[in-house]
C-alpha cells in the first residue's frame, strides 16, 4: 500500500476519533454508538495495522539502516569500485535488491530470522543511544557472519558448486556448507565493509 494512503488513513482515523470525543453526546443514540464503535475500535485497529506493516517493511530498507550517521561509511562501501569487495559487487550488480541491501544479507533465512533481526535492531539502538556507539571502524557483528546467508542464494548454483576456487581443496565445499569455514574468512571473500580504508578507495558512480 502506498505510504500516502497509509498516512491519509491514519489521519482520517485520528480525526474521526477526535470528532467523537468532541461530540460525545452523539453516542447516546443507536447510530452514535455504531459511529463510536467504528471510530474508537474498528478504524484505529485497521489504521494501526497498516501503519505497523509499513513500519516493518521500511525497517528492512537500506535507507532505514543507513539513517544513523554511524552507518554512513557502511553505505559508502556499497559503492566501492572494486569487485573484490563482496557487498559492493552484490549491490552494484543487482544480485541483491538495492532498496533492501542490508537486510538481504544480514537477516537469517529461518522461521524466526525476521524476529531475530528486529531484536538485533533493538540491540543496535541500545548500543547507539545508551551504551555509546563505537567508531565506525571498530563496529563488529555481534556474532560471526553465518554462511547460511550466502548459501541461501548460492547453494546449488553452478558457479558456486563447480567453481575452481571452491574445489581446490577436496573438503572445502563441505566445510563451507557445514559453516565450519566462513565464506568471508581470510584468503576467501575477505573484503567486505572495510570502512577504515574508505579514504583510499574509488567509488562507482551510477549513471542516471
Amino acid at each position, binding site marked *: 500500500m502506498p*505510504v500516502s494512503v*497509509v*498516512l491519509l488513513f*491514519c*489521519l482520517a*482515523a*485520528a*480525526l474521526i*476519533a*477526535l470528532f*467523537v*470525543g*468532541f461530540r*460525545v*453526546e452523539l*453516542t*447516546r443514540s443507536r447510530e452514535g454508538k455504531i459511529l*463510536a464503535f467504528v*471510530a*474508537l*475500535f474498528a478504524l*484505529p*485497529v485497521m*489504521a*494501526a495495522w497498516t*501503519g*505497523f506493516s*509499513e*513500519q516493518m517493511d*521500511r*525497517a528492512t*530498507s537500506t*535507507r*532505514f539502516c543507513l*539513517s*544513523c550517521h554511524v552507518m554512513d561509511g557502511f553505505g559508502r562501501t556499497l559503492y566501492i569500485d572494486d569487485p573484490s569487495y563482496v557487498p559492493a559487487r552484490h549491490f552494484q550488480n543487482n544480485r541483491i535488491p538495492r532498496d533492501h541491501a542490508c537486510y538481504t544479507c544480514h537477516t537469517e533465512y529461518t522461521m524466526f530470522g525476521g524476529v531475530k533481526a528486529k531484536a538485533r*535492531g533493538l540491540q*543496535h*539502538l541500545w548500543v*547507539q543511544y545508551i551504551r555509546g556507539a563505537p567508531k565506525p571502524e571498530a563496529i563488529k557483528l555481534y556474532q560471526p557472519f553465518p554462511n547460511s546467508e550466502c548459501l541461501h542464494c548460492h547453494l546449488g548454483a553452478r558457479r558456486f558448486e563447480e567453481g575452481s576456487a571452491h574445489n581446490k581443496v577436496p573438503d572445502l565445499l563441505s566445510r563451507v556448507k557445514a559453516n565450519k569455514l566462513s565464506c568471508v574468512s581470510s584468503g576467501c571473500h575477505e573484503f567486505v565493509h572495510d570502512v577504515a580504508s574508505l579514504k583510499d578507495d574509488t567509488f562507482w558512480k551510477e549513471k542516471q
Partner: protein
Amino acid sequence: METVERRIKWASFLIGAGLLVQLASLLVVHPLAFMGFLMIGCPLMLAGIVMYLLSLIHEK
C-alpha cells in the same frame, strides 16, 4: 456529563493522540521513529481502545 461519556471522551483523545503519533512516526524513516510508533503511538491507542471497551461494559 455521565461517567460513560467521560470515558468515551478520554478514550477518543487517547486514540486520536496515539494515531497522530503513529502518523508523525510514518513521516520519518529512522529507527527512533519506529520506536516512537511502537512505544508511544501503539500504547496510547491501545489504552484508548481498552478504555472505550471498559466504558461499554460499564454502560451495561
